[in-house]
C-alpha cells in the first residue's frame, strides 16, 4: 500500500514540469435550465489531444501553459461553444450550452463532434440520454431508464416486463444501483414491471459494465449511477403527464436565480381505481398501486461551495380486502457538499441514508399475523478529484457504510397456529479507500490505474452457526454487541488503457476486481419484494470477480456513427446457489440452504449506434456464456447459470418524421433462460410427481418482441407545450413464455402437459405530457 502511494507521487511529480502554468476551471451548464452537464468536454484547439470532461457535478479543470487559446465546450445534443482566452493567470470560466434546435432542414455543422466513444479511456460504459429514453416505446407508456438500459448489449432483463437486470452474466443482485449516491436495494415497483426511477426527475444515467472506476465498489457486475436533476435555476416549471395507469407531476424552479434551485417530482399509479369498478368480487377488493416522490434542492454558498439535498421515497401497496396485504419501498436521502479547495482540487462530501423494507399482513380466519423485514444503510463518503495537469488526474477518497439488516420479524395478533418469530438482526460495517490515477502521456495513449481496498466486518450480538458442506449445523458461538464475528479485506485493483489507432478508431483494454459483501437470496425465477439481503459471514464468503476486457472502437462519418466490439472474460469466486427447494423466508438457518462454488462468464458485444440526424438508434448484439460450478449441484460439473442467454439482440430506431411526429420502434430477440424442466414423472401418495435430473439443463423458448411508439408534439410556445405519446408493446402479439408449468391435463387426468403462461400481448397505451414555464 505504501509503495503504491509512493509510486503515485513519483509519477505525478515526474510529469509535472517547471514551466509557468495556469488553470482554467468552471462549470458547463444548460443555458436554459442552469442544470450542470455531466460528461461535457472542454478542448483546447491549439493543443491537440488536450481536453477534459466535466465530473458528476459539471465541474472541469485544466492546467495549461500561459498563452492564447481557443476553448471549445461541447456536449451531445447541444451546440458547441467556442471561446478565445488569453491565459495569463488562473481563470474561472463557465460555459452555457444551448440544446440543438430540432430544425429538420438544418445542415448539421460538421467539424469536431463528440468522439467520446473512441477517445475516452474507460470502456464498458453506457450512458443514456434522457431524451432518447422518452422516445422509446415501453410497456404501459411508462418511460423507464432501466428498461432502456436492457436494450443495450451485455444487459439483459430478468424476465418479461421486469426491471431487474443481468449485466455480463452477473446475477440481478450484483448491480450497485445508486440514486444520487444512495444505494437502492430494490429498484422495482409493482413486482418489477416499473423501476423506481421517475424519468422526469433524472438528469444522467451511467452504467459501468464491470470495469468501473475505483470510486465504486461493493457489487460484482455493474454500477448503475443515476443522478437526479438539480432543478431549473432560471424559471418555474410545472410539467407532468397523464397516462393509462399512472400520472406524474413535476415542479421545479429557482430558490434564488442562478444561486439555487429545487425540484419535486411525484408519480402515482391508479390501476386499482379501475379495479374498484369491477363487479368481480375478486377484483374489486384488490389493492394495487405505487407512488414515489423525488425531492432535490441545491444552493451555491459562494465561489467554492455548494450544497445539495436529495431524497427519494417510494411505496408499493398490494392487497386483497382484509385478508392479505403487502407494502414495500425504498427511502433514500443524501446530503452533499461540493467544495473547491483550489481550482485544481474538487471535493465532494456525502452523508447518505438508504432504507428498504417490506411489511406483510395476512389474516386467514383465526390467524392474523404480520411480517416485517428491513435493510438500512448509513454512509459517509468523501471523494477528491485533483486535476494536476493535462497529463495527470488523481482521484481518491473513502466510503464507510454501516448496514443494519432485520431479516424478518413475525408478529401474530392471535393465538392461532402461528407463533411469533424474530430472526436476529445483522449489523455490519463496510469500508473502502481508493486512489486512482489517470495518465495521458501523449495524444494517442492514456491509461488509468487504481486500487480500492475494501473491508467488511460482521458484528454481534447474537448466536452464529457454522455449517458443514452438506448444510448441517456443526457449531455455534455467541457474540456480544459490537464484537466482530468475521472480517474480510480485499484489495481491488483496476486498470484501463486506451490507444488511439487513427483519429476515428481506438483499442482499449481493462482489468478490474470487485468484491461483494451483501448477497440477495431469491429462488423465484422473477424477482420478489420479499427477497432477502444477507451479509457475508463466517459461512458466506464475499463474492469476488475478476473481469478482463478488450475492445475496438470506431466512429464513422464525422462521428455520427459509433461502432464498438467488446469482449470480456469474468472469473468469479464464492458464488452462491441454492439447495433444492431452499427455504429462504423466515429461516434462522438460512445459510444452511446455500451451496457455494465458482463461476465464469465470457462474451462478445457488438454495438452500432447512430447518434445524430433525423434517424437515430442502435443495434446491439451479444454472444455470451455464463456457467457455475457448485459443490452438490449436478455432481460438481459446470452448468449454465439461470441468466445464461447465449444470443441477445436489440434494435432501437427513432425517426423524426416531421416537426410534429416522431416514430420509434424496438425489436428484441434472445435465447431463453437456462431452466430445470422435468425429465419424467411418477405417482406417489395419489399425486403425479415430476422427475428432475440436472439443474438448468433445459431452455425456455426463444423470446421475440417488437414495440412501436409515436410521439406527437403539440402546440409549443415559450410558456406552454404539450405532447402525446402512443405506443403498442408486443405489436406482433407473440406469446412469449413467462413461466412453464407441468400440471395434469384437466381434460384428461391420464396425461400431464406443459402449460406456458405469457403475460403481455398488444398492450396499447397513451400518455399526455404537458409543461408550463413561468
Amino acid at each position, binding site marked *: 500500500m505504501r509503495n503504491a502511494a509512493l509510486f503515485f507521487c513519483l509519477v505525478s511529480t515526474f510529469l509535472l514540469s517547471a514551466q509557468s502554468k495556469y488553470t482554467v476551471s468552471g462549470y458547463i451548464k444548460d443555458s436554459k435550465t442552469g442544470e450542470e452537464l455531466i460528461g461535457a468536454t472542454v478542448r483546447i484547439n491549439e493543443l491537440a489531444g488536450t481536453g477534459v470532461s466535466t465530473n458528476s457535478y459539471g465541474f472541469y479543470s485544466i492546467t495549461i501553459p500561459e498563452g492564447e487559446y481557443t476553448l471549445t465546450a461541447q456536449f451531445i445534443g447541444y451546440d458547441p461553444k467556442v471561446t478565445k482566452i488569453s491565459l495569463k493567470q488562473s481563470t474561472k470560466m463557465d460555459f452555457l450550452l444551448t440544446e440543438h434546435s430540432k430544425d429538420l432542414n438544418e445542415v448539421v455543422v460538421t467539424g469536431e463532434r463528440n468522439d467520446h466513444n473512441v477517445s475516452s479511456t474507460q470502456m464498458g460504459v453506457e450512458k443514456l440520454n434522457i431524451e432518447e429514453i422518452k422516445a422509446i416505446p415501453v410497456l404501459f407508456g411508462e418511460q423507464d431508464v432501466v428498461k432502456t438500459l436492457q436494450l443495450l448489449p451485455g444487459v439483459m432483463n430478468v424476465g418479461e416486463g421486469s426491471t431487474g437486470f443481468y449485466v455480463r452474466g452477473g446475477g440481478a443482485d450484483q448491480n450497485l444501483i445508486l440514486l444520487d449516491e444512495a444505494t437502492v436495494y430494490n429498484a422495482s415497483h409493482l413486482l418489477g414491471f416499473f423501476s423506481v426511477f421517475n424519468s422526469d426527475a433524472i438528469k444522467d444515467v451511467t452504467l459501468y459494465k464491470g470495469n468501473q472506476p475505483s470510486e465504486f465498489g461493493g457489487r460484482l457486475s455493474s454500477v448503475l449511477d443515476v443522478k437526479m436533476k438539480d432543478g431549473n435555476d432560471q424559471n418555474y416549471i410545472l410539467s407532468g403527464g397523464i397516462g393509462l395507469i399512472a400520472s406524474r407531476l413535476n415542479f421545479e424552479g429557482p430558490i434564488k436565480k442562478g444561486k439555487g434551485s429545487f425540484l419535486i417530482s411525484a408519480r402515482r399509479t391508479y390501476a386499482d381505481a379501475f379495479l374498484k369498478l369491477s363487479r368481480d368480487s375478486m377484483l374489486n377488493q384488490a389493492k394495487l398501486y405505487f407512488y414515489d416522490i423525488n425531492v432535490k434542492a441545491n444552493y451555491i454558498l459562494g465561489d467554492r461551495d455548494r450544497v445539495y439535498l436529495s431524497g427519494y421515497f417510494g411505496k408499493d401497496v398490494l392487497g386483497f380486502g382484509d385478508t392479505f396485504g403487502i407494502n414495500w419501498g425504498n427511502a433514500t436521502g443524501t446530503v452533499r457538499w461540493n467544495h473547491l479547495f483550489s481550482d485544481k482540487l474538487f471535493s465532494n462530501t456525502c452523508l447518505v441514508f438508504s432504507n428498504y423494507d417490506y411489511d406483510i399482513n395476512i389474516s386467514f380466519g383465526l390467524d392474523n399475523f404480520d411480517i416485517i423485514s428491513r435493510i438500512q444503510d448509513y454512509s459517509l463518503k468523501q471523494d477528491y478529484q485533483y486535476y494536476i495537469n493535462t497529463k495527470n488526474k488523481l482521484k481518491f477518497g473513502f466510503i464507510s457504510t454501516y448496514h443494519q439488516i432485520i431479516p424478518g420479524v413475525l408478529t401474530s395478533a392471535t393465538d392461532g397456529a402461528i407463533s411469533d418469530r424474530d430472526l436476529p438482526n445483522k449489523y455490519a460495517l463496510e469500508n473502502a479507500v481508493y486512489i486512482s490515477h489517470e495518465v495521458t502521456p501523449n495524444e494517442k495513449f492514456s491509461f488509468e490505474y487504481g486500487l480500492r481496498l475494501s473491508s467488511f466486518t460482521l458484528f454481534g450480538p447474537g448466536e452464529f452457526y457454522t455449517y458443514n458442506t452438506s448444510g448441517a449445523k456443526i457449531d455455534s458461538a455467541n457474540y456480544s454487541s459490537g464484537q466482530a464475528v468475521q472480517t474480510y479485506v480485499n484489495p481491488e485493483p483496476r486498470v484501463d488503457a486506451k490507444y488511439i489507432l487513427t483519429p476515428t478508431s481506438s483499442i482499449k483494454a481493462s482489468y478490474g476486481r470487485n468484491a461483494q459483501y451483501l448477497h440477495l437470496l431469491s429462488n423465484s425465477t422473477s424477482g420478489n419484494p420479499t427477497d432477502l439481503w444477507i451479509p457475508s459471514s463466517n459461512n458466506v464468503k464475499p463474492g469476488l470477480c475478476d473481469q478482463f476486457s478488450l475492445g475496438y472502437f470506431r466512429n464513422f462519418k464525422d462521428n455520427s456513427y459509433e461502432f464498438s466490439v467488446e469482449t470480456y472474460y469474468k472469473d468469479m469466486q464464492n458464488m452462491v446457489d441454492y439447495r433444492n427447494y431452499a427455504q429462504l423466508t423466515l429461516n434462522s438457518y438460512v445459510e444452511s440452504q446455500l451451496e457455494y462454488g465458482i463461476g465464469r462468464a465470457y462474451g462478445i458485444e457488438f454495438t452500432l449506434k447512430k447518434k445524430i440526424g433525423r434517424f437515430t438508434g442502435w443495434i446491439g448484439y451479444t454472444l455470451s456464456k455464463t456457467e457455475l460450478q457448485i459443490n452438490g449441484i449436478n455432481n460438481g460439473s459446470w452448468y449454465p447459470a439461470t441468466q445464461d442467454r447465449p444470443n441477445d439482440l436489440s434494435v432501437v430506431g427513432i425517426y423524426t418524421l416531421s416537426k410534429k411526429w416522431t416514430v420509434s420502434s424496438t425489436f428484441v430477440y434472445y435465447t431463453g433462460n437456462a431452466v430445470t424442466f422435468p425429465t419424467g414423472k411418477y405417482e406417489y401418495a395419489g399425486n403425479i410427481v415430476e422427475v428432475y435430473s440436472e*439443474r438448468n439443463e433445459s431452455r425456455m423458448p426463444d423470446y421475440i418482441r417488437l414495440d412501436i411508439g409515436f410521439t406527437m408534439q403539440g402546440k409549443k410556445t415559450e410558456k406552454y407545450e404539450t405532447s402525446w405519446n402512443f405506443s403498442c408493446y408486443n405489436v406482433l402479439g407473440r406469446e412469449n413464455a413467462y413461466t412453464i408449468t407441468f400440471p395434469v391435463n384437466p381434460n384428461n387426468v391420464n396425461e400431464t402437459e406443459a402449460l406456458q403462461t405469457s403475460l403481455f400481448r398488444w398492450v396499447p397505451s397513451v400518455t399526455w405530457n404537458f409543461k408550463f414555464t413561468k
Partner: protein
Amino acid sequence: MIKIALIVLLSGILISSCQKVVTLNLASTPPQLVVNGFVTDQPGPYTINLTQSVAFYQDNVFPAVANAKVVLNDNLGNSETLINAGNGNYNSSVLQGTPGRTYTLTIVANGSTYSGSSTMPPGVPIQSLTIDSTGGGFGGGYGGGHGSSAPAKHYTLTVTLQDPGGGANYYRFVEVVEGVTKNNIYIASNAYQVGSQISKKLSSSDTSIVAGDSVTVYLQTIDYGTYEYFNTLNQTIQNASGFVQVSDPGNPASNLSNNALGYFSACSVRKMSILIK
C-alpha cells in the same frame, strides 16, 4: 404462500395474460424405481409398493415392479422377506412395528439394490377434530392447493394435538373422505412451539366434502427425514402445477439409495373420525 398470492393477484388483475399448452423437447431419463412404503405401530400386514417412473409425455400409467426381492429388518435383528402380492405390492406377514425401532428396507429389483431406513417415533393422539363450514374465500389454506374462489360451501377440518415435547416432533395428516384417501399433503412440526398445542387446518381445495360424509383423519408421527420428504414433495407438486416457478426445483429428499424415488417411512398412527352434518 405469499409468493403465490402475490403473483396470482398480479397476474389475474393487471395483465392480459394467456396460457397455452406447448410441446417441449424434454430430456428424458431411464425409468427409475419408485418406492411407497410404511411400517406403522398398528398391526400389519405392511405394504411396500414398487412402481417405475415414465417419460413426461407418456400416459399416467406407472408400471408395477413384479420380480423384486423386498426385505424388511429392524435394528434388533428381526428380518422378514416380504411376499409378492402382485400389482407391485409386497406384504409383510409376521413383523409388528414398534416405536423406537429403526427399520431398514432393502430392495433388489432389475439388477440393482436399493435401501433406506426410518425410525418410528411414539404415537401422539388426536385431541380433537372439528369442522368449520364458514371457511372459503381467497386462497384456500396453508398446505393444500390454491386457486379456489368457488362460493360453494367449503369445509375446513381442524385437527388438534398436544405435542409431547422432548425434542423435535414431526407430524403428517392424512384425510380420508368416504373411504377415499385425499392426496393433499399436510405436515406440521413443533419447531417453534415445543410442547404446546398444535392445530392444523386441513382445507380441501375441492368441494367434494358434502353433508353426510364420514371423514377420518390419520395422524402419523414421523421422523425428520419423512417430514423433509413430504415438505419437498409438496413443493415439487406445487412447482409443477402452480403458477410460481422456482429456480431450484429437484426431486424430493428421499431416504432411499441408488437414485430411487419415493420414500420408506416408519411411523406411529392414530386416527379420529367425524360425520359432516
